[in-house]
């Protein structure tokens, strides 16, 4: 099993959910994060003082997925999230040892 972590632009979430559903991914967890990278932040002013805001709102998607599905999932995410502009985000894949569905107690592939 794999964990796919994708950092994407917030307004892509709806489309992403739909496209992932289409390839059979029916579970995911989303969190609101702030990213720092090549995409520059911006200057802000507050009552006469200027300051730099480097962290930009992003969404992190976490999907636990069977090994075989993971390639397709990464592909889909890559396609959907791409706008061609700096800051489109990243996809990371991590190994997962087990997954358990709390409601039923199932574990492994059937849990996700």
């Amino acid at each position, binding site marked *: 099993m794999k964990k796919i972590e994708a950092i994407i632009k917030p307004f892509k979430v709806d489309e992403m959910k739909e496209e992932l559903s289409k390839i059979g991914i029916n579970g995911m967890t989303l969190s609101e994060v702030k990213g720092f990278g090549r995409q520059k932040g911006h*200057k802000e002013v507050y009552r006469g003082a200027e300051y730099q805001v480097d962290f930009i709102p992003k969404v992190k998607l976490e999907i636990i997925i069977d090994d075989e599905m993971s390639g397709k999932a990464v592909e889909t995410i890559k396609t959907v999230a791409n706008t061609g502009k700096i800051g489109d985000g990243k996809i990371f894949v991590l190994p997962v040892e087990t997954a358990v569905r709390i409601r039923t107690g199932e574990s492994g592939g059937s849990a996700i």
Partner: protein
Amino acid sequence: MKVTRTWSIPLLVLLLSTVFGMFNLVGAGDVVPEEVAQSVFPAELFQGKTQAEIQKELPISGAYRDETSPVEETVTVDVGGAEKKVTIFRYLTDIEIMQYRGDVLWTCIAAFLVFIMQAGFAMLEAGFTRAKNAINIMMKNIMDFCIGTIAFLAIGFHIMFAGPDESLFWLGSTAATQWGFPFWLFQCVFAATTATIVSGGVAERTKFTGYLAYSVVICAFIYPVFGSWAWGSLLDGSGWLEGLLGVGFYDFAGSTVVHSIGGWLALAGALVIGPRIGKFAKDGTPKALPGHNLPFAVIGGFVLWLGWFGFNPGSTTTFDGNLARIAVMTNIAGAAGGLGAIAAIWAYMKKPDVGMTVNGFLAGMVAICTAVDVVTVTGAFIIGLVAGVLVVFSVIFIERSLKIDDPVGCISVHGVCGAWGTIAYAFFGVEEFSITVLFAQLIGIGVGFVWAFGTGLVLFLAIKYTIGLRVTKAEEEEGLDIGEHGGEAYTGFPVHDLTP
């Protein structure tokens, strides 16, 4: 010799019983004003001056009244059976001065209440839109009032209320007397309201410089011109709509003059600027872009309700018992509007939606403005109720069928329901239904639409092709707060808007 008096000051409605009476000018072959004056009024109302001396002190027009300036009054003297009109000049009685002070106090308090509507609009509009644009909306509302004040002071007031003879730029002759001040203040807060109404229709995508530009033009020109047509004679002007078809176009507190004008300007703005990114799917289906702070918006609605207790009852600018009646009718229409809207949206969408309910009570109060001083309880109830239902379907129609993006519903609330209220006068505001009255109202509505929508189109197109009306796509996505104002409204709170 019998004496009857015709007042030259319409607002001094109070009967001056202490000076009324019958009297005879013994053996009067020729009527001497000096003598008549002294017989009708106590000597102190002349302060030891002759009629000619007092006449020189008369203000330019009766509108420039003051507690120390004299008034002109026509007294009918019955000389041996023949009636003769004699014009007398005198100072105010104590009771007239009290009345004047009451007028000033009430007009100012009403203006304060209308002022706070600026805050109400700001809360409503900010709450109904997204967090990333909240500073921008606040700034627009602050500037509406700052610009509105100065633009109306410099130009608008003159356009709206000057007669042919004197200048009202920068208050002009008004500043010389006292009455000009409360009257100006009340009119100034009205003018600022119109500009603020427009703000909602073009929210979340308008360049701040473009906004400032149109705000100036509305307060200095568009609103005052229509205002002068409908309300000019409240001071020294004379509006052609006031005598329309003999009956006159009637709009007591501005369903059309303020609200519809604002609503149609918003319509023009929303059309020229186009919908927000993401508002309509590719197939044209509208998507919800929910507001970020609905409790804030609702409190804004309550504040607007409070303000309406100045807006409508204050429109008499008179301290008398009538203001209570107007306040009650305003309240009934607002309540009925809220009930109408909640019922309509509940029936239609199966949920009692808060946004529509707020729009509903506002719509009720917009609609009642025209006839609020003459309507019955039942009339007020029906006008409000219909407005509440109407606003719901108007919002849905404008969004789904016309594909116009009006983030807070101001076209429906102010434009459409303002028009409804103006028409309703013909049914609920007059003793007997008259087709002439209905036509006069319809013409007024039509003229208002053509003027506001027409000048609005020109204005917004002019801005679009000069300084620019809309922010860039990137800025719209990121939020106008950062792009236009260099800041964020809610530092410390993670704000995550999943809409574009």
